[in-house]
């Protein structure tokens, strides 16, 4: 009996391992939405002061882990594998991260394809400013400057120095901000940043009005402010070339319960909105950042000659061929067919010889057919699809195209009948001539 007990224990532990629930659906290409998110805060009180935002994330299935930004046990990776799929940095005043985290590690995290939400406020440290600059948003260098707007501020009984702004200059994108329009203005209090107009990857999601400027509210202005008007971005989003998404907000209070629940009245207008647009804005923007919307995948590239089903290894010039691809969009839980009318395919060799817009059957299948051009060489079927807010699709499939074989040329061309007649008449004349020449008297 004593001998059998250890083996019995082993058997029981094996059974319990098999019966335990399988690991939660983790971040992968098949399910692009992040699952495990690390939230770094300066002060754990943020957990309750921003609870509406965090609860909305949890209710959509994310696992949040809250840590202080200088926690010595912080690390994003262990043994080469990332421990989290997304990072929320609500720690504006941290000057050094704890543990093994630093600015380059955060950049590495984004470079690996993971998403980041970064929010700062008026006491933003250099570390956080550096992370924002890496992502394309340059905050105002003056550490005392905040965004002030004397014409577009929110009427409230607090300040009076017009640093609480009500902004409704939103980016026009249903992918990023959802289908429903945000009607109420969005409350913002914090610092402004600018984005380089030559940078195609960064977009201004919430822009300041033309009357805004970035300056220290407590002192007199000695020189014109460097950041003014619509070049100030309040909230920016960035989609990297590896489809990682970053949201940078100049105001941490934008996410707070106080702003989410408060009513808004823009200065100069009589309408009082019961609820600011903050909740809708942060919820929809977070959905986009964590790939619940606007994430495309293209599968099943097929091409064949019209009338056949197998994919040939080579085409001939002037063949008729068909090309099809299936494109799906991730809806947060499953892959839905993507419907658009501007997906194009190119038949490319150094330059596109054929460029056609594909038609869809509304179930995700895009197809078109065209004639191979009269040029031989090695071509590529290219689909390069980049739309604002969507992940970029870049497909290329190589296929050679050969010229006619000697027996594939056109024969008996009607335009050439006179030449055929002339040749045969010459032959006939030669025959008759030789007979006459030989047998004449």
């Amino acid at each position, binding site marked *: 009996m004593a001998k059998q007990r250890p083996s019995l224990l082993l058997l029981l532990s094996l059974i319990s391992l098999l019966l335990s629930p399988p690991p939660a659906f983790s971040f992968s290409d098949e399910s692009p939405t992040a699952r495990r998110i690390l939230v770094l805060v300066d002060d754990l009180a943020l957990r309750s002061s921003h609870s509406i935002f965090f609860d909305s994330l949890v209710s959509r299935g994310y696992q949040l882990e809250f840590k202080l930004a200088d926690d010595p046990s912080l690390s994003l990776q262990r043994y080469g594998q990332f421990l989290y799929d997304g990072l929320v940095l609500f720690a504006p005043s941290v000057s050094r991260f704890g543990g093994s985290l630093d600015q380059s590690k955060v950049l590495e995290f984004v470079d690996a394809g993971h998403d980041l939400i970064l929010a700062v406020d008026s006491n933003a440290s250099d570390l956080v400013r550096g992370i924002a600059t890496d992502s394309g948003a340059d905050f105002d260098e003056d550490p005392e400057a905040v965004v002030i707007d004397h014409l577009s501020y929110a009427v409230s009984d607090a300040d009076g120095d017009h640093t609480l702004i009500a902004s409704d200059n939103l980016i026009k994108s249903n992918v990023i901000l959802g289908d429903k329009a945000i009607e109420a203005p969005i409350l913002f209090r914090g610092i402004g940043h600018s984005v380089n107009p030559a940078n195609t990857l960064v977009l201004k999601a919430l822009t300041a009005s033309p009357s805004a400027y970035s300056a220290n509210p407590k002192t007199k202005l000695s020189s014109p402010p460097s950041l003014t008007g619509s070049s100030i971005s309040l909230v920016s989003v960035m989609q990297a070339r590896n489809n990682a998404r970053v949201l940078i907000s100049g105001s941490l209070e934008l996410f707070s319960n106080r702003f989410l629940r408060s009513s808004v009245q823009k200065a100069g207008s009589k309408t009082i909105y019961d609820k600011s647009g903050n909740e809708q804005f942060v919820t929809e923007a977070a959905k986009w950042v964590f790939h619940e919307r606007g994430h495309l995948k293209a599968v099943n590239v097929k091409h064949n000659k019209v009338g056949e089903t197998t994919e040939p290894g080579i085409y001939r010039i002037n063949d008729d061929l068909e090309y099809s691809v299936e494109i799906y969009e991730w809806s947060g839980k499953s892959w839905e067919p993507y419907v658009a009318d501007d997906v194009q395919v190119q038949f490319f060799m150094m330059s596109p010889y054929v460029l056609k817009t594909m038609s869809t059957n509304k179930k995700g299948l895009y197809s078109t057919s065209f004639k191979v051009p009269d040029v031989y060489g090695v071509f590529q079927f290219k689909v390069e699809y980049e739309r604002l807010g969507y992940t970029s699709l870049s497909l290329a499939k190589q296929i050679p195209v050969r010229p006619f074989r000697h027996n594939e040329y056109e024969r008996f061309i009607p335009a*050439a009948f006179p030449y055929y007649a002339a040749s045969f008449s010459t032959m006939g004349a030669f025959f008759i001539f030789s007979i006459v020449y030989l047998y004449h008297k």
Partner: protein
Amino acid sequence: MAKGTNDAQLLVQSLRKAYAATPTSLKIIDLYVVYAVATALIQVAYMAMVGSFPFNSFLSGVLSCVGTAVLAVCLRIQVNKDNKEFKDLPPERAFADFVLCNLVLHLVIMNFLG
């Protein structure tokens, strides 16, 4: 000027008389050459009108006419009894050359006609 046209008329008449004296076989060859060249000219005029689309067919047609005309001219030179250079060449040999060359020419033409 009357003298000019008179001279031209005299020239044409003397040419006609001389030509009438050539042997019949040579006249037959001349006729064949004229036919071939006329066919070639008709083809060139057709191409000028319609464009050179099946260019290989055009070349083939013109070449067959011009080639056979050239071969007939060679035959005429070799068979003409007044030609001192080919005095020792039997006319049968000249005709056999003509026939073989024409066969090769028309073989090539058929291939290139497309």
